[in-house]
């Protein structure tokens, strides 16, 4: 993975980006309602798959905007990129 296609700017060198970790995590608005286990789940448990992974990227040295990507973590191939608010793209293997 030498370049990443930013959905705002097009294909750019990987050096311009910062990884933002797993995408589509939802924070419970009333965290005081959560049990310790549920709170630990939100804080510490991440998908970490060997295969397709939906993740956030930040084009920090470019347009400075966030976006989402689906990447195969075994081959580091980026399968799709999409803007925040858009649904996770349907990506075939």
């Amino acid at each position, binding site marked *: 993975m*030498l370049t990443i296609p930013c959905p705002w700017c097009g294909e750019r060198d990987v*050096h311009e980006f910062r990884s933002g970790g797993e995408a589509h995590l939802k924070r419970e608005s009333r965290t005081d309602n959560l049990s*310790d286990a549920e709170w630990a*789940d939100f804080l510490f*448990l*991440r998908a970490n798959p060997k295969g397709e*992974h939906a993740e956030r990227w930040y084009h920090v040295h470019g347009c400075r905007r966030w976006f989402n990507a689906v990447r195969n973590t075994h081959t580091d191939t980026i399968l799709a990129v999409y803007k925040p608010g858009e649904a996770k793209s349907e990506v075939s293997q």
Partner: protein
Amino acid sequence: MRRYSILALARNALGYHEGWERAWRAPEPKPEYDAIIVGGGGHGLATAYYLAKEHGITNVAVLEKGWLGGGNTGRNTTIVRSNYLWDESAALYEHSLKIWEGLSQELNYNVMFSQRGVMNLAHNLHDLRELKRRAHANRLNGIDCDFLSREQVGEYCPLINLSPDIRHPVLGATLQRRGGVARHDAVAWGFARAADARGVDIIQNCEVTGILREGGRVTGVETSRGTIRAKKIGLVTAGHSSVLAGMAGIRLPVESHPLQALVSEPVKPILDTVVMSNTVHAYVSQSDKGEMVIGAGIDPYVSYSQRGGFNVVQDTLHAIVEMFPMFSRLRMLRQWGGIVDTCPDASPILSKTPIEGLYINCGWGTGGFKATPGSGHVFAHTIARDEPHPLNAPFSLERFTTGRLVDEHGAAAVAH
């Protein structure tokens, strides 16, 4: 097992070295074992060795999907130290360092443990405070640690660029003189040979594809070489821990990242210690062959590629060349990546799991090699007694729910 000795060497020299026996057998898997260790790296092999030696459990199989030590055991930069901040970690890593000091004799295998000292550099005021705090904490725990001023760093390691005008000037360092390096392949081979001699079956090219369970307890594993049953199973698979735990329906608080390293062409001996810097994410030592062994920071995204991005190598070499300007003329020979399983608190997980008979040893992140013998020792205890050793009790899976984290982000050389 025929012991290695000067006499054995002489005897075999007379026979043109054709009489050496295999270091370990290559057995077919039996249908059932008392315990199975998944993962034939240093930690897994050490676990099997101590199961046999300390607990008399010799009907054990180590299942390795590739070849012994072909994962992170053969991919790390071989640094051994125990200068961690908190009491829990200091005790665990120091336990390991003490075993390292007698390991070659114990295994009858030269692991080339060389206590040449490990220096951690400070580049700013925060580093200075953090390293001084850690040096004091180490001393309170009975672990040797000296604090060196900038001038003392220059005396101890004249190669380092002490100019105040560089981007990250060197302001001081901690030095653990008992730290050093070891030959990583020899650690895997030594433990494999010693475990095999006590009856452990080491089975290579055997990939675990499923974990069998009945009524909340494990009963065996599905592998590429058939079903193998056991009532106790230890998972020691580093970067693939999430994948293996997932087979048993367990989610782990670890993320897998590539950690890269590279070596230069060999040169005459010029660097007789280990130099590490957290701030610029670079560490270097010189191997006995003369190569500079250089470690980088982790690639920031989740990946199983065992390769990593070129930009990380570039950043690391920028830092190395600033610290050691004369290295700018070295050519690099090889570069590789290992997949490390990082924990949110930069401390490992050595724990029972919600499934009876299933144990997990993972989360060592970027610094597991140094812990190889100690980790195997306490994990074998955990498996044999079905309860943690006092040294690994704080490193349970439950700590992420209870909040009793062991935060070692400062002592881990690489940011997690």
